[in-house]
């Protein structure tokens, strides 16, 4: 296998070697059950509380407010159910059109059960309109659930303003921070947030571990009912190695917060590509964005074809085009931004990590311009036809 240039860190990340080192003893010698009444299990219990402290430190909350889960999807599902159970008389939910499937699909499901859901729109840069949020909020709103940072574009939502507005109306606030945790600072002492989801494998811990922040005093209803683990908030024997790994990963993430490395490389990549490849645009707000993500639209060519060429050079990225998703429609995030189809189908996301090297970015700058011009030479569409294409699109919308 040729050496891989991995620029798909919003999909998943490499396990940090230090994280692996920290978790290994809990797969080998320390296999005790933390619930057991002997000191062999007790040692393991100490490791769990240390991990809880490490995660709490990263988020600026109390260790008792952290509840370990199996993944981001579990966190989101649990949070939504818990929020509705806490205010059973209210029947309205507010979310956005660009959420992850683990929020959107539970919401659609709840609609069938009689809930009313408002899906807030975003503008062309992927940003929310707070006036639209305010207009949607009512006394019947049980929950406002939205992401801190978008997985496809990296665009950040103004959590603080959203949270205060929602609280004014007595709604519970849940934030899906799976993409944000470890990439930008979050201080839950300050933020008006009741529930917050994170996932380990997005910050260099392994897959299969996540956490949910539950603000102290919140009337929490568990999703998994059984044993008394996690103070009765999530039954099931703890994933000890995963929890230890998440703790270590959180500790490491904190030491890297504010390190400009990722953003410098992201900017070099983005600017370099924009300079070298005409008819290319950045999707998403240029400033209100994660430092590691760039989503670029290469007009007149299709994303899956670009990905297969990049793959030939060992470069991993992802695309919002229809062809890559297995569905026939392009990314719901980019469509919600009302991007023209020329851009939509040719969108590529590069997401970096602290392990990304300058030479890897250089390599992309070397090969991608050639790939795009090769595919544009095959394409029946080109710069000259742009007006005609937009016209075609408009007609389709009108129909």
């Amino acid at each position: 296998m040729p050496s891989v240039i991995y620029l798909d860190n919003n999909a998943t990340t490499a396990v940090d070697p230090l994280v692996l080192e920290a978790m290994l003893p809990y797969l080998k010698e320390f296999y005790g059950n933390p619930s057991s009444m002997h000191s062999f299990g007790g040692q393991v219990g100490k490791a769990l509380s240390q991990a809880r402290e490490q995660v709490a430190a990263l988020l600026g909350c109390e260790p008792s407010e952290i509840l370990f889960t199996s993944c981001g999807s579990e966190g989101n599902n649990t949070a939504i159910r818990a929020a509705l159970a806490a205010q059973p008389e209210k029947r309205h939910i507010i979310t956005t059109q660009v959420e992850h499937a683990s929020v959107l699909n539970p919401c659609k499901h709840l609609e069938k059960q009689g809930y009313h859901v408002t899906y807030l729109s975003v503008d062309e840069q992927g940003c929310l309109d707070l006036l639209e949020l305010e207009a949607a909020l009512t006394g019947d709103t049980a929950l406002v659930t939205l992401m801190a940072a978008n997985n496809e574009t990296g665009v950040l939502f103004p959590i603080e303003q959203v949270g205060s507005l929602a609280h004014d109306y007595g709604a519970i606030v849940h934030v899906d921070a799976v993409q944000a945790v470890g990439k930008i600072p979050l201080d839950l002492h300050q933020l008006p947030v009741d529930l917050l989801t994170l996932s380990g494998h997005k910050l260099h811990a392994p897959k299969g571990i996540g956490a949910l922040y539950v603000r102290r005093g919140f009337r929490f209803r568990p999703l998994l009912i059984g044993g008394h683990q996690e103070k009765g908030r999530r039954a099931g024997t703890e994933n000890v190695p995963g929890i230890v790994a998440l703790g270590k990963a959180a500790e490491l993430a904190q030491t890297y917060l504010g390190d400009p490395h990722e953003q410098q490389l992201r900017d070099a990549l983005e600017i370099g590509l924009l300079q070298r490849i005409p008819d290319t645009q950045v999707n998403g707000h240029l400033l209100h964005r994660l430092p590691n993500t760039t989503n670029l639209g290469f007009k007149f060519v299709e994303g899956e074809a670009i990905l297969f060429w990049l793959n030939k050079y060992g470069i991993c990225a992802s695309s919002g085009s229809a062809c890559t998703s297995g569905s026939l429609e392009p990314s719901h995030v980019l469509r919600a931004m009302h991007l023209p189809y020329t851009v939509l189908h040719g969108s590529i996301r590069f997401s970096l990590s602290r392990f990304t090297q300058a030479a890897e970015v250089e390599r992309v700058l070397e090969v991608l311009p050639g790939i795009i011009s090769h595919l544009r030479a095959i394409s029946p569409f080109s710069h000259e036809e742009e007006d005609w294409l937009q016209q075609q699109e408009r007609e389709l919308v009108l129909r």
Partner: protein
Amino acid sequence: MWDYSEKVLDLFYHPKNQGPMDPTPEPGIRVVTGDVGSITCGDALRLYLKVEEATERILAASFQTFGCTSAIASSSALTELITGLTLDQALKITNRDIADYLGGLPPAKMHCSVMGQEALEAAIYRYRGIPLPVHTDDDSALICSCFGISESKIRRLVRENHLTTVEEVTAYSKAGGGCGSCLADIEDLIATVLAEGGSERPSVAEPRDPVQVKTSAPLTTLQKIAHIQTVLEQQVRPLLIADGGDVELYDVDGDQVWLRLKGACTSCASSQDTLKLAIETRLREQVWPQLTVHAV
């Protein structure tokens, strides 16, 4: 990641016959184009044909494609399949022929082969000055408004490809892959077509290896070509190459098969015999008994 065949990847990374064709007229020759798809749907193909007017033979074909890996590979495959055919022969090409040529496509990508077949048809109809019979703007009802798919197109795909489920129709046409509001209509339509006895062609059961075909049904020219080529490839060429020669299929017309001998064979006095005995016998046995082989 999609599991594409070697052939798909090869034609994607090294497409044959890409790019527009020079439309300047040469005497006796016409260049026509056929377009399908749009930027909105996410794939579009413009096919160019260079047709000799006297014989209606396709002298050359090329393409421009906006689309994914399999769309580009399907387009390239199409141009290879049709070069040298007459327009009538080319009209018999189905999307299955394109998919088979590619060593198969992932089920969700079958619509790429359908696009190729439609572009070919569009080009030929344009050459003949006939308005397109089916597809986008025909008068039959629009079933899927998300992707602009008509009833007649779905009927045809169901019949030609022996589709029985809504998922298959979506994979072949995209219909139903958007908002999903047409799914029930598609289901009804499939039931209607099946009830009308849509499956007259037994191609689902058709063996993949043409050498084993001993069918009594008349072969299409394309099938003939494919079968002959397999026999040549697997049984004849290895022998000739070992003797420093080679053979290439030049043309097929009805029962007449033209072969071109290369290298050591052409100078060899017994080349005619080689042809008659070795090749014709084999081809008669394995492809169809009435054929006659000629050298060019």
